[in-house]
């Protein structure tokens, strides 16, 4: 039923204390929070923790949200910041499977192995990037955001985002070329 209304409407209702309106926003954008956390951190456990923290933080900070950006953009900011905090606290990742249950469903065993190796290789290469390059690569190449959007989310400038993308793409390409 809530799908009829805009994020702005839901944000306003949630700010007035309609918790169900926020639940609707979590329904719509919880996947974004988890996906970004997973790609930045490289493991499901940390990603779930960070997504949860980000969504609760967003609720707590909702009264201060003035709508200068869209709700998803604001959520990207929160989840990215949370993930970066986690990266600086723990450098070691346990699992490298970005796709989890999805990759485990169907297909031939041989294909699985090859596919899992590829997933692991890409994930390892992404999570080995320095945090600023990793954020730029994930938001631009995985989330499909423009350089301007990435700059807004990271509180950076477009030239800085371009620079991080250039360096991140070079490093990632070298790693993947060697892997192949």
């Amino acid at each position, binding site marked *: 039923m809530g799908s009829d209304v805009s994020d702005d409407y839901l944000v306003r209702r949630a700010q007035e204390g309609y918790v169900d309106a926020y639940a609707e926003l979590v329904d719509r954008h919880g996947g974004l929070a988890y996906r970004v956390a997973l790609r930045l951190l490289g493991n499901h456990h940390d990603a779930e923790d960070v997504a949860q923290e980000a969504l609760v933080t967003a609720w707590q900070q909702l009264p201060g949200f003035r709508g200068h950006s869209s709700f998803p953009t604001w959520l990207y900011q929160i989840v990215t910041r949370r993930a970066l905090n986690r990266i600086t606290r723990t450098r070691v990742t346990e699992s490298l499977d*970005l796709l989890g249950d999805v990759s485990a469903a169907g297909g031939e065993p041989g294909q699985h192995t090859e596919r899992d190796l590829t997933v692991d290789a890409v994930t390892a290469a992404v999570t080995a990037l320095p945090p600023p390059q990793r954020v730029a690569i994930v938001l631009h190449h995985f989330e499909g955001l423009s350089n301007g959007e990435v700059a807004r989310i990271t509180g950076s400038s477009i030239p800085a985002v371009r620079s991080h993308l250039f360096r991140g*793409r070079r490093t990632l390409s070298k790693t993947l070329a060697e892997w192949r």
Partner: protein
Amino acid sequence: MSDPGEPIHDVSLLLSGANQHLACGTDVDELLGQAADGYASQFTSHQRDCLYCQAALREFGRIWQPVRSLAAEQVAVPAALKSAVASQIRKLVADVWYTLQLDDGGAIRIAARVVARLAREAAQDVAGVRVAFGRSTHSQMAGLAERATLRHRHPHAAVGVLGRTAVVDLAIAVRYGDPVDAVARQVQQRAVAELRRKVGLQDVTVNVTVDDVIT
């Protein structure tokens, strides 16, 4: 057409090299960005005639294919995420309870959020209602909270009250073309009836706010 020269044998060398341009003068990073964005086969007018650029784009496109495939994959969101968030938010929100019975046999209490949810569901069943959200408030407490938080309204301000009297706020959006006042009145009557029937709350006030019309 540019002279193709030596083919690209070692991409790592090309990417590590101090010279960041191909022999044709094209910036390697620009080509890498083009391939990474998925446009390796969409040549510019220069690239259509340049075998250096074509070879580099082909190679960069191959290298980036696994990244692009992974980026296109659906990520399964843990089923527990939404409920875990809801549970944490419940702890943050000042939970208020309606006491239906308090005697020697014990107490029966119902969370205000449950009452608000039942009212919301009742509202959603009314024809013409497109969206409904419910919260539980008590006029006096809500008034105090509203004044206290006038400049910095916070969701936590929406609270209910102990006792047998329920005050529920419903925010609804109605379908364009339907009589707004009639829909709102129906919502009010239905929510009151449902709370009396399902919860046993006799003294119920339901405030309905129509805040949007949806085509």
